[in-house]
């Protein structure tokens, strides 16, 4: 696998506006570039055609969801809990407080397996809580999980006539 095989990736939110409509818009809030890299590999291995927007800073993530911010609504948000400046929980709270993002499916991708972290997330309608696996094969398995969530979400979106 080489870099060119990886899904297209932008670094800043404003570039998302130019994104191709058919591609799945994924917002990844994660500060560890290696994890972003592994995530891209997993998505590519699962043959998921997506546009990734990566935000590696808590403060920036908070700004994205501030009321009135002109951030495009992604199809899915993948959030790490352990971020500089603002933690994932805070970011998700801000996101859910904004009606635009209230229904965006969220997947937590965290190195913490602590039940307390898990339980804190319960009230935010989290689609899946994935503990970052150490084993490569297990990490690759995240791709199919994302695909599944996206397809369920699409079906839901259609059936609700959005």
């Amino acid at each position: 696998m080489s870099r060119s095989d990886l899904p297209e990736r932008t670094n800043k939110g404003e570039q998302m506006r130019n994104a191709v409509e058919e591609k799945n818009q994924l917002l990844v809030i994660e500060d560890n570039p290696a994890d972003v890299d592994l995530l891209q590999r997993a998505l590519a291995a699962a043959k998921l055609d997506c546009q990734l927007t990566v935000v590696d800073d808590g403060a920036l993530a908070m700004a994205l969801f501030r009321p009135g911010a002109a951030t495009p609504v992604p199809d899915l948000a993948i959030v790490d809990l352990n971020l500089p400046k603002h933690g994932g929980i805070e970011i998700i709270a801000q996101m859910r407080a904004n009606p635009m993002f209230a229904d965006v499916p969220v997947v937590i991708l965290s190195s913490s397996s602590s039940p307390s972290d898990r339980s804190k997330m319960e009230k935010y309608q989290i689609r899946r809580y994935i503990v970052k696996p150490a084993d490569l094969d297990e990490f690759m398995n995240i791709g199919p999980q994302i695909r599944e969530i996206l397809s369920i979400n699409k079906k839901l979106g259609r059936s609700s006539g959005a």
Partner: protein
Amino acid sequence: MHPFRDIPIRQKLMVIIMSVTASALVLAGSGIIVADSILFRAAMQRDISALAQIVADNSTAALAFEDPRTATQTLGSLKARPHLVGACIFRPNGAIFAQYLRPGSGMECPAGNAADQMLFTGSGLMIRRPIELNGRRIGTLVLLNDLGELTEHIGLYGQAVLLILLLSILVAFLLSSRLRAIIAGPISQLADATRQVSETSDYSIRAQKLSGDELGALADGFNEMLARIQSQDSELREALLAQAAALKESQEVRDSLRTTLASIGDAVISTDARGRVVFVNAVAQSLLGLTEADLVHRPLDEVFQVVNEFNRAKISSPVTEVLREGRIVGMANHTILVARDGREIPIDDSAAPIRNEGGSIQGTVLVFRDVTARRRADETSRLLASVVQSSDDAIFSWDLNGTVTSWNQGAERIFGFSAAEIVGQSVAAIFPPDRLDELSSLKARIGSGERIEQFQTLRKTKAGDLLNVSLTVSPVQDPTGRITAASVVSRNITEQVRAADRLARLNADLQRSNEVLALTNQDLERFAFIASHDLQEPLRMITAYSQLLIKSFPGQFNSEASAYVDNIVDGTTRMRELLTDLLAYTEIRSRDEQPLELVDLNVVVENVVQDLKASIDETGAVISSDRLPVVRAFRAHFQPLFQNLIGNAIKYRGESPPRIHVSVQEVGGELRFSVSDNGMGIDPEYHKQIFEVFRRLHGRKIPGTGVGLAICQRVVERYGGRIWVESLAGQGATFFFTLPNVAIRFAGEDK
């Protein structure tokens, strides 16, 4: 009774008058009639006799000449007399010579030869008379006259009499109805008056005097009697009222005296002149232990038994003395009353004579009281005085001017002033110069009734040394409640203060080192948490990218390089296990923000068995458990606790398949859980070490991080419990733990 007696006088009088009048009249009428009829008969006899003479004379010739015709003629003239019913002339031989019989009368001539006579027969008057010629009897004449005339006469007369009678009765009635009022009026008036008096009891009513006769006198007498009764009645009435008032007053006085005596706090007994109990109040009854019924009429000496407190000699009751001497007697001190139930009560008493108006002794009154409380108070105050005097604390007092009024031995010892030196002097003598303002403040606070407790300050001894003292200063009140002085208890705490200072310094040092230690501990905990958490990340990277390296460049690494990568992955995996366990270990203490939940330990053990299924199947382990309780705790603590203990029991097994039993039993008032196995056991030398973090007794042969038992210990200690192991090498092991701070309940219990 006799109906006549009951009828009113008015009618009685009338009946009397009428009956008297009627009977007098009837009697008079009857007399007149009788007399008249007698006279009338006599007149009739005379008349008839004369007529007979005439007829006889007129018939003499006819008879002498035997001429019956003439004779009959003569006789016939008699028909002019209506009542002459028959006339017969008989011959001397008795044969009828001539006769006249009034037609319709039915009469016949009687026998002709009867004796001469005149007689009344049933039907009338018959006269028989001779007819003589020259003195020779030539015939007999008989005349028969009926009584019709008499009857007629009497009837007429009777009618007259009856008429007069009726008229008289009428007049009498009219008169009597007038006259009877003269008698009956006053009587009925008197009777009315009497009835009124008896009905109303009003003795002012008077009968009216209507006449000057006996009835008038009777009315006078009646009135006089009434007047006397009236005056007596009113006197009696007044006397009765006065008596009632007097009685009521004396009753009230007696009641109030009795109430006073009954409710008085002292015991009161009164006796008569012979010393017998007459009255005894409730206090006396209770002190003597006898009831009023037991006491009254008994000689006082029998029921009031007193002895001398010290020599137990019987003392005669003061009543005897009063009766003998006739004066008030107080009892000697130290008198003990022996109550009936044997109680001994110290009493004060006195007795006094009761004199009547004439001054002679009528009885006595004995007053006594239980002085136990006062005696006790006296003893207490004596005791207190000696306590004060012998106290190690300085106890003294000063008046509101600050002048010392008392000074005990403790004060002498502590401050160096003798009582003689300082009493009467200002208490300022023991105040250090720079604390003299305390004195005025103390005076003001005491003056306002405040009590100052445990006030620590400095005082000065006679020699000028400074002392640390703890003062308790209390206001002293006189019986009227006015604050007159301050009592001071002053304890010399110089030594304590010094010791306390030293202790405080030591404590402060200790506190500081504790804080440092706590901070260090916190830092360490934090460090361990962060490290174990954050170190995961790079290890994950190492693992993932090592694997990626091999996968991304297939064919470019030989088997040796692959083995190296495997070693890298193994190392990082093991490191991650260590970090994960370490993280779990540090997290046990950071759960306080979550609510406690009910954790069924039976379920926890089941879950653990489920989780360990692979190794259980592999080793053929048999795991059994007692019925375990439900606890109120954090579920996340008990899973690792049992997982580590049971997992260890499988991991460190012996030759035979593991047999593991979880049990709980009450030992010494607390629940003791245990997990016992038949495994390889632990040498007692290591029984303590095994609970330390990262401490392992076995090499790589048996995998493990050395954190499991440390986690168990941490969990148990978090709930105030302890964990230990009982085991010998090769003989299995039993891990025990207790959970004192956990609310525990067994299934089926209601609590």
